[in-house]
């Protein structure tokens, strides 16, 4: 298969970036031409991805093994394109977002898509940077004090973590003499201290991006200060990108020595699940709460990597979908109610159950999926992760997962309880801004969340097809 066929989704996104730039230049103030072009580009890339999937392709490598197109990368494409389209739709109205918004979203999506197919160190570094650079701009795009502060923090810590990652990559290259993941394991000195140091620094850099305790300090601040659609993108898309590259790097390059990195990642996953969900408990700002809950979920995802088995890879890939759908649904509701404010606090939710019963019901569904209540996708995802931990004979991880889930349940019940409180004083539900684009995101999110909880079979089938890469070292 030629590169132009297999990489068609990425090429469509590249073309969409260029056309969106032209559309952004000619648009009238307040117009949505650029957003439409970007959305059509994303839907085209989604169509190309599904078309490739139905062709049942064999894994194909391109550009001197730097890109691998297989079912894994196609599944990642679908996740990233859902994240990008929800971000575009939540930032649709165009009043608060500037004209560069759809362009930067598309470029960041391109970086995330490339992270799913990375096969060597050069492509890894470029994918991480193509993901990060547009997000620095996006997180600072509201010209407020908080927005600038969020952008500055993200930039400084992002550059710092990229530096650590790069030096780790340099040491790995020095120890093995090759850039390709698949050749690391066959290099002569698998147990050299240089390789161990390089792998450690590389993992620290990637865990920074994923937001794992103790490298999580930036997450809540950046989430709180960024515009709502951008926070949605970071919570879903960045987690997808960082988690899938971590899985691919370790499963391709370091499958011979899981004893070197598996236990370390296991302990970090345990710490992250507990600390992330514990710190989510006292939060009053909902964006901060989702920031800490995102840290907790990153810990859950890390279980799938740490157990180093195909069951773990499947569980991690599956968990990304219900987590992401709950994120986009919850942020759609926050966008609808808080368009005139920077952020939404728990007390703003008071009286919601009485005045906006539909929105309240949907919010309950998303919170239940975060918490892992049965009949939502989050429950099925947590069940698979629990299964993966037990299959790998890691009862500590399983106990940590259950404990983290209970702590998270407490954190998610607080906003739900606030919705049923009656509000003193005047109603705050007058400022609701319901656009058709918000409704589309909400419908997709709720159908996906409930559908994954009630009938997960087809998605489980796709996930196990994607995780087949695990055997193809």
């Amino acid at each position, binding site marked *: 298969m030629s590169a132009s066929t297999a990489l068609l989704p990425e090429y469509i996104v590249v073309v969409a970036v260029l056309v969106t730039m032209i559309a952004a230049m000619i648009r009238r103030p307040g117009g949505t031409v650029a957003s439409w072009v970007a959305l059509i580009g994303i839907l085209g890339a989604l169509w190309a991805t599904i078309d490739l999937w139905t062709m049942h392709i064999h894994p194909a490598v391109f550009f001197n093994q730097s890109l691998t197109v297989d079912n894994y990368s196609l599944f990642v494409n679908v996740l990233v394109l859902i994240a990008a389209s929800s971000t575009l739709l939540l930032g649709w109205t165009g009043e608060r977002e500037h004209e560069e918004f759809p362009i930067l979203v598309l470029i960041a999506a391109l970086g995330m898509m490339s992270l799913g197919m990375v096969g060597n160190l050069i492509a890894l570094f470029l994918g991480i940077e193509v993901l990060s650079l547009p997000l620095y*701009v996006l997180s600072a795009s509201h010209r407020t004090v908080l927005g600038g502060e969020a952008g500055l923090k993200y930039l400084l810590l992002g550059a710092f973590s990229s530096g650590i990652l790069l030096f780790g990559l340099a040491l790995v290259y020095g120890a093995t003499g090759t850039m390709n993941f698949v050749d690391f394991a066959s290099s002569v000195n698998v147990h050299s201290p240089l390789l161990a140091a390089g792998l450690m620094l590389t993992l620290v850099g990637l865990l920074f991006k994923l937001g794992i305790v103790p490298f999580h300090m930036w997450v809540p601040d950046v989430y709180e200060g960024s515009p709502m659609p951008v926070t949605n993108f970071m919570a879903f898309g960045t987690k997808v990108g960082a988690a899938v590259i971590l899985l691919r790097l370790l499963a391709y390059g370091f499958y011979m020595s899981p004893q070197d990195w598996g236990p370390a990642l296991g302990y970090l996953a345990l710490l992250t699940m507990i600390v992330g969900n514990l710190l989510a408990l006292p939060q009053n700002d909902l964006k901060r709460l989702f920031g800490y809950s995102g840290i907790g979920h990153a810990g859950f995802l890390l279980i799938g990597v740490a157990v180093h088995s195909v069951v773990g890879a499947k569980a991690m890939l599956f968990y990304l979908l219900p987590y992401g759908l709950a994120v986009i649904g919850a942020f759609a509701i926050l966008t609808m109610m808080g368009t005139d404010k920077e952020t939404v606090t728990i007390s703003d939710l008071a009286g919601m159950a009485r005045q906006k019963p539909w929105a309240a019901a949907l919010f309950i569904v998303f919170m239940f999926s975060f918490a892992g209540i049965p009949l939502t996708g989050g429950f099925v995802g947590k069940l698979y992760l629990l299964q993966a931990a037990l299959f790998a004979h890691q009862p500590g991880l399983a106990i940590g997962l259950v404990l983290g889930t209970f702590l998270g349940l407490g954190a998610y019940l607080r906003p739900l309880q606030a919705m049923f409180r009656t509000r003193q004083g005047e109603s705050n539900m007058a400022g609701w801004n319901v656009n058709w684009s918000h409704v589309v995101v909400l419908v997709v999110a709720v159908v996906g969340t409930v559908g994954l909880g009630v009938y997960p079979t087809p998605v489980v089938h796709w996930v196990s097809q994607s995780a087949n890469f695990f055997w193809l070292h």
Partner: protein
Amino acid sequence: MIYTNWVVALAGIIFAIGAIGVMFRRNPLIMFMASEMMWNAAALAFIAFARQYHDMNGQVMAFLIIATAASEVGIGLAIIVSVYHKRHRLDVDEISRLKG
């Protein structure tokens, strides 16, 4: 004769200076500069290893690091200037409306 180990040791020292700079300086400009130093240390290590293995990949990586660092500087300085416009002082300890 310049041994690879010496160059890599130099890169390690530059990397450590950069990391210490990011952690202990409080001016965003200096912190940003220090993290660029970490990037350049990595580029130096890549070049040293590429020379050792007679492999072009490491040199390609060094060029890509330079290009990416340049674009990162463009974005970073813009963000730092826009923050400076709002508060006219640069100190990360004062930029703390978001409590972490």
